[in-house]
């Protein structure tokens, strides 16, 4: 028990506290009464007069520029009309008036009403973008409370679908800035990667409004000017970009890249089919986007980096160089191709069933003789092939800081097969690796880098952003005569009798060298081979072979490389023609 003296004291003194507490609390109550009951009207009026609206003045977004300084993506000023429901005197008649003046479709009006019901009353609802000036002036003259005009920017994509996966587009996000419904940020591609550089800093105008939402003044002290974003200067040549896209678009699906060997500049980079971000803003944008999403040819995919393909015969360049560097083959040494080769208990076929006859290295490249490369691969072994492939840049990511999403593919060896497939590496695996089939998977960018490194004997690294500094590339250290032996074969490919004979470039005095490839998407069974292999026309689109072409030009002094892949095109002809047309355009413009 607490002793009585202390207990009594507690009672006495706590009474003082309670009295004090009641006294203080009554102060609070009186103050509340004073503010909310007696002075309610004063505060209400103050709240109405004092209410202000911050209008964000959007900053002009920086441009994405081509190598020549022309804009690829840039902002263009537009006027947006929007309404704030709680400010309207009669919301229905306001929407009706606006719909009539702007000639809005019924669907659009429905969308506006859906938006009004979904949002809170003080949040803005967009009515129209790209409003014509005269109609706008007419509407403003009517002075309708609740109706607002916001001058902002709309993004224009000059190249449209050509490289849209790479340059990306802007859009509104939930995470955007508060109280700014029209604030856009980069959603994909360079627009996203360089958001901070491009975005700039929005300014603000603080408008003081009265009870019905009419603007009564502006607080000059809080005004802030927007700061324009910085430009991003790319290495893209817009003419070549368009040309590559246009010729690639003749085929259902594919990708291509053009590079300058001297500095690694990516001049063009295209994935087809594509999408046109300029059409993302209109009323029918939702239908357009859902249509794109359903397309089996995947228009949103950046196939240059994300598409993985067996390199097929283009890989013969790697095998040839590996064998030469290993000293395992003399370029003039010949192999006889009867159209097939029996090794172990299996028969390996050449694409030319009749056979090529006697083939040296140049001839084997020119005719893309499979038998020659089966035997060469077996002679040097998978480790030498893998080693060379990695030196030439397969299995790597490029400009990853700009394009984060990339697939690196597979350059297999013994350990890889044991881990991934769970069985031992056999000679048959080495043999089919010799023609770029089997487990090998590469992307378009890697093939272009390979071609660039072979053509230049330098460790070329591609770049997409312009810098003042001219990059210096290390030598690959290959024997010049070995490079020459390979390039001689590649020159033959585009000469009469070669696998890309019809695709020579059309520039006076200049020639292109290169290598075709046809990569199987499915394996052909023995039974089928006996009963007659199905022609590509008989197969479903997505079971047909891919066509590939890697090339460089001019042959006397290599400056550019090109790699084109046409998906499921059946043969390499389309890829070679696309590459040739693009290279022709490039060299012609150079004069």
């Amino acid at each position, binding site marked *: *028990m*607490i*002793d009585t*003296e*202390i207990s009594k*004291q*507690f*009672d006495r*003194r*706590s009474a*003082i*506290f*309670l009295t004090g*507490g009641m006294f*203080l*609390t009554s*102060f*609070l*109550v009186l*103050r*509340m*009464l004073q*503010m*909310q*009951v007696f*002075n*309610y009207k*004063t*505060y*209400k009026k*103050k*709240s109405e007069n*004092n*209410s*202000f*609206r*911050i209008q964000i003045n959007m900053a002009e977004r920086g441009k994405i520029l081509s190598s020549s300084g022309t804009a690829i993506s840039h902002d263009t000023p537009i006027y947006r009309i929007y309404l704030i429901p709680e400010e309207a005197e009669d919301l229905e008649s306001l929407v009706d008036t606006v719909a009539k003046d702007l000639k809005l479709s019924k669907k659009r009006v429905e969308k506006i009403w859906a938006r009004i019901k979904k949002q*809170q009353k*003080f949040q803005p609802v967009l009515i129209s973008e790209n409003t014509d000036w005269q109609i706008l002036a007419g509407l403003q003259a009517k002075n309708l409370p609740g109706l607002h005009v916001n001058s902002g920017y709309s993004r224009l994509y000059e190249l449209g679908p050509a490289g849209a996966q790479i340059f990306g587009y802007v859009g509104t996000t939930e995470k955007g800035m508060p109280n700014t419904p029209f604030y856009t940020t980069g959603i994909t591609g360079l627009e996203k990667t360089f958001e901070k550089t491009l975005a700039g800093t929005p300014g603000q105008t603080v408008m003081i409004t009265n009870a019905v939402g009419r603007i009564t003044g502006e607080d000059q*002290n*809080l005004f802030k000017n927007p700061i324009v974003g910085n430009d991003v200067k790319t290495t893209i040549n817009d003419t070549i970009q368009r040309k590559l896209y246009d010729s690639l678009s003749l085929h259902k699906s594919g990708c291509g890249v053009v590079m300058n060997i001297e500095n690694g500049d990516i001049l063009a980079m295209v994935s087809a089919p594509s999408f046109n971000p300029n059409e993302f803003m209109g009323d029918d944008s939702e239908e357009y986007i859902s249509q794109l999403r359903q397309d089996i040819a995947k228009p949103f995919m950046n196939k240059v980096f994300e598409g993985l393909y067996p390199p097929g015969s283009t890989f013969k360049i790697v095998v040839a160089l590996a064998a030469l560097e290993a000293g395992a083959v003399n370029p003039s040494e010949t192999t006889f191709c009867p159209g097939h080769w029996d090794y172990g208990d299996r028969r390996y076929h050449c694409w030319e069933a009749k056979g090529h006859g006697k083939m040296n290295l140049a001839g084997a490249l020119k005719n893309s003789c499979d038998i020659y490369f089966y035997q060469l691969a077996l002679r040097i072994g998978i480790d030498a092939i893998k080693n060379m492939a990695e030196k030439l840049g397969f299995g790597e990511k490029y400009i990853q800081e700009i394009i984060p999403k990339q697939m690196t593919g597979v350059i297999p060896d013994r350990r890889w097969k044991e881990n991934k497939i769970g069985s031992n590496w056999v000679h048959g695996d080495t043999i089919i690796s010799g023609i770029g089939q089997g487990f090998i998977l590469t992307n378009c960018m890697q093939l272009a880098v390979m071609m660039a490194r072979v053509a230049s004997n330098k460790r070329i690294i591609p770049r997409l952003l312009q810098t003042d500094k001219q990059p210096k590339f290390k030598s690959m250290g290959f024997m010049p005569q070995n490079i020459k032996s390979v390039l001689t074969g590649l020159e033959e490919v585009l000469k009469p009798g070669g696998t890309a004979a019809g695709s020579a470039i059309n520039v006076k005095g200049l020639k292109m060298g290169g290598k075709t490839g046809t990569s199987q998407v499915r394996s052909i069974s023995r039974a089928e081979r006996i009963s007659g292999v199905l022609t590509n026309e008989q197969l479903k689109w997505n079971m047909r072979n891919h066509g590939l072409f890697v090339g460089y030009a001019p042959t006397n002094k290599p400056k550019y490389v090109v790699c084109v892949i046409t998906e499921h095109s059946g043969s390499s002809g389309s890829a070679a023609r696309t590459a040739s047309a693009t290279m022709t355009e490039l060299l012609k413009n150079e004069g």
Partner: protein
Amino acid sequence: MTHQIRFSNANMMSFSEKLKRFSWPLFIPMCLVLLLSEVVLYSAGGGSWQPFALSQLLKIFLSLGVFAFVAFSNIKFWIKSAYFIYAIALILIILVTFVGHTGMGAQRWLNIGFINIQPSEFFKMALVLVLARYFAWMNSVDISKFKNYLIPFLLMVIPFALIVTQPDLGTALSIALITGGMFFIVGANKKWFLIGGILLVLAAPVIWYGGMHQYQRDRIITFLNPDSDARGTGYQINQAKIAFGSGGILGKGYLNGSQSQQSFLPEKQTDFIFTMMGEEFGFIGAIILLSLYSAIIILLFWTAKTCKNRFGQLVCFGFMLNFFIYYFINISMVLGLVPTVGVPLPLMSFGGSSLISLLFGFGISQNAHIHKDQQLSAKGS
């Protein structure tokens, strides 16, 4: 110093026995205020669970766990560990003063991995515990001796000095008031308070010029004349007053506080949450909250009064003081009755540190109530 130590052989209570003694009247108003805080935070998020309501809900559940643990624990544990808890809280205060994070011009936050904690919030409860532990076993003779107040004064004044330099005037003031209140209730001589008051008035100019940050001086100047700087320091309090006053008797309706929702009422989810309530629910809403608070105070007082052991009584009383000071300072501040100091509205404001320390307080008061008939010794045996 001779303590009048009483021994008791009271047995450990079983859980069901504790549950029977649990004070529902003390528990229910607390829960009602917590519920109200969720309602208002949902509105502060613009009619959304994000970013405040959901996050706070998790903190409420966590704090209720702390509450349950403390309420049903053995009171002897708290007697035994009072000094230890105080030491830890003091170490945290020292840490935050030297390595803490700065927010709103004050160094109050300690970042431990994924969360920020505000040690000064926990310190208030630690102080109540240690003062109750110190005075509980003093007889009426010892209690009137001046020298017996020197140690507890030091226990307060060291962290007080540190908190002032953070600078967190609101909390510093709170702990000074809690200590003063505790001294008074245990039976300190009334003359000492008079002398202390006179000393404080004399020291005021020194504090004004030597111990305060410019922004604190600004706040007081602004308080005395809010229109002197309507867009700067006075902006906050002016906006708060307009928002609150324009709520009227019935308020503007849930989610419709135009000032809080659309204009820039700063800190509407933390220190100024009462303003937002007042705008949306009006005088009626504000009175309901104030009534719930008053009910909590009366119930805490009753718990203290009916407690048959001195430790439980002092802990309850100390917590009651803490709770009252919390909401009185906060509401006075947002109504423009005192200068702006950073004190949250108890159980209502967004934030975890204050919530956990408050529910710890409610837990320990329940604990005292459950053990109110037990005789306790200073050794906690």
